[in-house]
């Protein structure tokens, strides 16, 4: 090791350059590992609706039609019954992902969580009972949505079946926060919300893993990181007490609406789908809706775009890796040629010729391992929850170190064979 240290001292600049190259190389490896990881997540998420047709359900209750509908005594029961049938139907997967901003009292996050931040708007605030509420991004999701989009948590718990049921005695709902909200809130924190003008308390029970997407009516690629996820609420029964409060009725109505404006994933063709929906309508006496059909092509396109993005990133990273590796090998070859006298000193002092490629390989392994430290540190800081990915990265670095050390051992042997050091000792 003393010799390794002395040779390090002799070529500080070169070794620093190699550590820098190794750092860039390792950053690219991380990018590759993240890409592979993300692709797996996306492929897993899209696998459940690969080859299926997508239908979106939209109620047609607005203006006078809505007024007429709610004049019926059993209007709430009809809406609830229709929603229940959709949830229970096994000929399609029913996913509710209702994009609905919510107001949060004394919100801790910054402007990126504003409901319309992507459209250039700042956080809208409103005062209620001397408290300031900010309008932030939120999604109401049913159990089906979590299953269809395979939403994973980095910590905490998922919603339980009872969490989707609202009763008048319930003053708290569970919340799952997107990964970007993790620095601002902890598990167990409570948030004072105003949902459809109803004051309600949300309790943080989990955090979603980063970089997951779902389909909403607004976008086929909604990133969950900045969203508050809450259960799409339903009711065991519509009791008079639920309708008594001044604010409860709109809350109840909107919640029921959100449950019937979902997506259906099925292999059924449009004709068959209409027949299934007619059957449900007949059973529930609810006909005020339309089905927006989208054939498998759109989902296929989504999967294709995911594949293309992944392939593009693979190629970019792969080309960058080849460039860095070539640069690494080229500078190493120059280094070997410039250090013939150093190797000659080692030879006449008792080294064997076979020792020298081994020495170069050890120096390479050390510079790669040193170069991998900074990416690991940054990675650990920002991707704390992805320990599987971190482990994969460490394994990848070790594998690359072994491979590269082997390549460099043999290539430096070839370079040294071509340049006869012993011959150069002669006059």
């Amino acid at each position, binding site marked *: 090791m*003393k*010799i390794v240290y*002395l*040779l390090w*001292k*002799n*070529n*500080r600049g070169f070794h620093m350059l190699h550590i820098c190259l190794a750092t860039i190389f390792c950053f690219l490896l991380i990018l590759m590992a993240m890409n592979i990881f993300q692709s797996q997540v996306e492929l897993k998420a899209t696998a459940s609706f690969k080859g299926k047709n997508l239908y979106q359900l939209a109620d047609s209750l607005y203006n006078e039609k809505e007024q007429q509908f709610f004049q019926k005594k059993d209007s709430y029961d009809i809406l609830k019954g229709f929603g229940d049938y959709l949830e229970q139907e096994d000929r399609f997967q029913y996913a509710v992902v209702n994009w609905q901003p919510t107001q949060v009292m004394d919100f801790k996050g910054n402007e990126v969580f504003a409901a319309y931040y992507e459209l250039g708007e700042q956080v809208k605030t409103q005062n209620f009972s001397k408290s300031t509420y900010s309008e932030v991004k939120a999604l109401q999701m049913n159990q089906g949505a979590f299953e269809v989009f395979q939403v994973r948590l980095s910590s905490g718990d998922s919603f339980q079946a009872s969490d989707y049921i609202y009763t008048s005695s319930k003053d708290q709902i569970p919340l799952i926060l997107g990964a970007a909200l993790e620095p601002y809130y902890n598990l167990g924190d409570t948030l004072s919300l105003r949902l459809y003008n109803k004051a309600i308390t949300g309790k943080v029970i989990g955090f979603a893993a980063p970089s997951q997407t779902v389909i909403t009516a607004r976008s086929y690629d909604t990133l969950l990181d900045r969203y508050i996820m809450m259960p799409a609420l339903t009711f065991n029964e519509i009791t008079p007490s639920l309708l008594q409060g001044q604010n409860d009725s709109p809350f109840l109505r909107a919640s029921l609406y959100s449950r019937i404006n979902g997506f259906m994933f099925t292999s059924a063709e449009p004709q068959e789908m209409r027949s299934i929906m007619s059957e449900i309508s007949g059973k529930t006496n609810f006909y005020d809706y339309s089905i927006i059909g989208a054939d498998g092509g759109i989902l296929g396109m989504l999967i294709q775009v995911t594949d293309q993005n992944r392939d593009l990133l693979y190629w970019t990273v792969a080309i960058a890796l080849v460039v860095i590796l070539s640069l690494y090998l080229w500078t190493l070859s120059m280094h070997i040629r410039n250090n013939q*006298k*150093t190797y*000659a*000193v*080692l*030879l*006449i*002092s*008792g*080294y*064997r*010729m*076979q*020792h020298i490629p081994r020495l170069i390989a050890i120096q390479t392994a050390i510079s790669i391992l040193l170069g991998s430290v900074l990416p690991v540190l940054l990675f650990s800081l920002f991707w704390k929850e992805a320990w599987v990915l971190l482990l994969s990265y460490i394994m990848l670095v070790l594998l690359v170190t072994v491979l590269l050390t082997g390549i460099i051992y043999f290539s430096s042997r070839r370079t040294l064979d071509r340049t006869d050091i*012993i011959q150069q*000792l*002669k*006059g």
Partner: protein
Amino acid sequence: MHLVATIELEQIHKTFGNKIIFEQVQLTARAGDFIALLGKSGVGKSTLLNILVGLERATSGSYQLDGIEITQKTTKEIAHIRSEYFGFIAQHSPIIPGLTVQDNICIPLWIGKRRLHNEQLEFMMELCNRLDLTKLLRQKAGRLSGGELQRVGLIRALLKKPKLIVADEPTGALDDETADSVILLLREMCEQGATVVIATHSQQVANQCDKRLELTSTGLHALDVSKV
């Protein structure tokens, strides 16, 4: 293994491809011998010295060191013998330019995984004093002149008090006074039991050696002092 460095070369033959460099080289040297190797440029003196220290192998023939057949040893074993018992001073003494003079001198110790003991430190300082290198010990070796480099190479080769010292033109880049100091130093090593073989073109240096041998393509031939 404890060597006294008795060298026996028998029918040593060396070729590069189809070209015969030399053949039928015979040499017997015992501890305390101080041998000058003479010969025209390109005749293979440096090659013969490289064979003596195991940096090159003879094409055929026998090379025995204290009765041990060196030609049958592996490169690992030869490297070990070179590290422990041989001192080699190359014609253009190579150095590691980014290291200090002292680090360059101590390289054989680090390779032998040894520490610089007080005794060796004293010996190194004595050698540096005699060859006027003391002031340069902390200096980067890359800044030294040719003569200084040659002296660094000499001290590096002598530091471990080797049993066989092989030097290729050790005084080539030195002034007469320093050259005399170097030869005197090598002579003292001989008196302490080392075998010294030096290749030289200098009549003055050759005259100070006990044996003078001329290398030709047909072997080694003893020379009278008058012929030198």
